């Protein structure tokens, strides 16, 4: 399995390289190092979110509410900043992460304690969280001039040549990698998704593990909420509308199995980068907006198709074993 995964990730690296080569044919400046750094920076938020989604998907769940969580946390961060301009930024970030985690906990608790299918839970909370933003803001926007300069500056500030936003995503990749590979919780995510029954026998609390996964995705969504709002310098009800699909697409492209148990940090990051390159390249290679939509969709379908084929083989084997037990 490890070998297969490795191949998949190499395959993805190959695909991104080919993609970059194709883009260069139409728009050479795209591969300039400065521009690639910009593309990475632009994809940073998607990467952070994909890492959270990965943890959830690994446990055979899904979090459709991530973008709504991001929007709500972001709105609260922006409103805090607008109401109390003197509040230190780290405190606002902490508030956003705390709120995001709390919202994730609601998802997790519903999945854990009430045993409702995750897709239903998060579909419900998605709408609830979006609705809450409206209730909170009254449908009003928080605009650039209402945010303090420090609030907007943090993700843009440069540290050793790169924006803080890029550094932050790199730190997150590192942390999640350690979590996944070096901690009991990280291994439990894989175990719960790979075979929940076997996980129970090894003493893993499946519900609690899923709950933890939702907390993680919530916390990352909360952090991204602040980053999003300060990067685009605007907060309103519909920010990041539909972005949950991009996050899931990044995971799927990255080879994280929707059936749970299979996936890696590198896969999620590469999946997000693949989408990020496409999103950033489409505006400059000058093709019709309708073709853009078709291309984005096609890429996702191809990735899912490749993934599904791989999964079907895997799935059968696991099921047969389970039945044999």
């Amino acid at each position, binding site marked *: 399995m490890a070998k297969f995964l490795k191949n998949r990730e190499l395959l993805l690296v190959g695909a991104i390289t080919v993609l970059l080569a194709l883009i260069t044919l139409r728009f050479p400046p795209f591969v300039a190092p400065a*521009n690639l750094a910009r593309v990475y920076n632009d994809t940073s938020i998607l990467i952070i979110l994909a890492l959270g989604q990965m943890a959830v998907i690994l446990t055979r769940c899904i979090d459709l509410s991530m973008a709504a969580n991001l929007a709500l946390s972001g709105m609260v961060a922006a409103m805090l900043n607008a109401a109390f301009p003197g509040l230190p930024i780290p405190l606002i970030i902490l508030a956003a992460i705390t709120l995001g985690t709390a919202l994730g906990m609601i998802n997790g608790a519903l999945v854990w304690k009430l045993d409702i299918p995750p897709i239903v839970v998060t579909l419900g909370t998605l709408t609830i969280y979006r609705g809450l933003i409206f209730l909170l803001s009254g449908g009003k926007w928080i605009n650039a*001039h209402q945010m303090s300069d420090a609030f907007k500056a943090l993700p843009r500030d440069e540290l050793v040549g790169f924006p803080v936003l890029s550094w932050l995503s790199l730190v997150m990749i590192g942390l999640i990698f350690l979590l996944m590979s070096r901690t009991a919780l990280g291994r439990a995510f894989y175990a719960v998704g790979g075979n929940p029954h076997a996980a129970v026998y090894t003493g893993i609390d499946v519900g609690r593990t899923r709950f933890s996964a939702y907390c993680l995705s919530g916390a990352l969504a909360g952090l991204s909420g602040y980053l999003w709002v300060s990067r*685009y*310098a*605007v907060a309103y009800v*519909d920010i990041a509308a539909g972005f949950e699909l991009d996050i899931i697409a990044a995971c799927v492209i990255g080879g994280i199995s929707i059936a749970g148990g299979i996936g890696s940090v590198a896969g999620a990051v590469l999946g997000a980068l693949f989408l990020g390159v496409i999103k950033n390249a489409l505006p*400059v290679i000058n093709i019709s*907006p309708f073709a853009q939509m078709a291309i984005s969709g096609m890429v996702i379908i191809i990735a899912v198709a490749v993934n599904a084929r791989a999964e079907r083989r895997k799935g059968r084997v696991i099921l047969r074993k389970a039945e044999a037990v």
Partner: protein
Amino acid sequence: MKILKSLMVTAAVSLALMANAAHAENKKIALVVKALGIGFFEAANKGAQEAAKELGDVEVIYTGPTSTTAEGQIEVINSLIAQKVDAIAVSANDTDALVPALKKAMDRGIKVISWDSGVAKEGRMMHLNPSSNALIGNMIIKLAADNLPEGGDVAVLSASATATNQNTWIAEMKKVQGNYKGINVVATVYGDDLADKSYRETQGLIQSYPNLKAIIAPTSVGIVAAAQAVTDAGKIGQINVTGLGLPSEMAGHVKSGASKSFAIWNPIDLGYSATMLSYDLINGAEAKPGAELKMGRMGTVKLDDNNEGAMADPFVYDAKNVEEFAKIF
């Protein structure tokens, strides 16, 4: 038959009496808005009060539901009918749902017009659009051209590629493009009214067209995202972001210089004009295709085949007035 006839006569006479009684006092014009407490409509009320003051014998009743629902507006309209107002000027929450209630009002001799957000043709005597597609199309390119005496490359950042409004405005803009010498529209891109996509599309424009001088975004999400992207790229002063936006959302970007000016209809003028038109109708003016109705200081409006008219050019906001309007909407 005879009974019916006499009944009808009685009804007609009493109705006429009632109408007379109402006319003896000030004329009551109800300004019905989508919901109370929205800055845009509060501003429209300000304009309506200004019109009432100017006219002298008019009392403006500013009302509406507490949330933007058609049911709420129907209730409000029914109570206005009971109060025997002389005219109702409504910005509708639903094109069709209000028609029966407004028909009832017209049957009672109340003049009904819609403004801002219209109702179906059979539910009103006329509709006042804040502006027309042709005026908006002309305005957005004019905004770019006014700051480019030497001419130069400009690009359009729209909402989605299928957005009817935006596509019509852009088409109208292209029609009059020849009037603005040296202005070269190099691209139209679509940000889908998503902040992140609009931001990315703007970055793409900056990369693809190094000589870009202005970005026209006829959408409120797009114009804000474009202004932010221009700011982040350090292109303030080099690329001017303009188009249609709200003062409260654009105030910061005007201050930073990312946007020199932008436009949107002026709600004060809109409330003023709606009141003036209602007054015209009360005083016997007829709303029919081709008719020209007076709107006080806003001039006249000419009705088209659907009894619709356009008030004026979108109102231009710049560093001088944006702060003041940002408080309103």
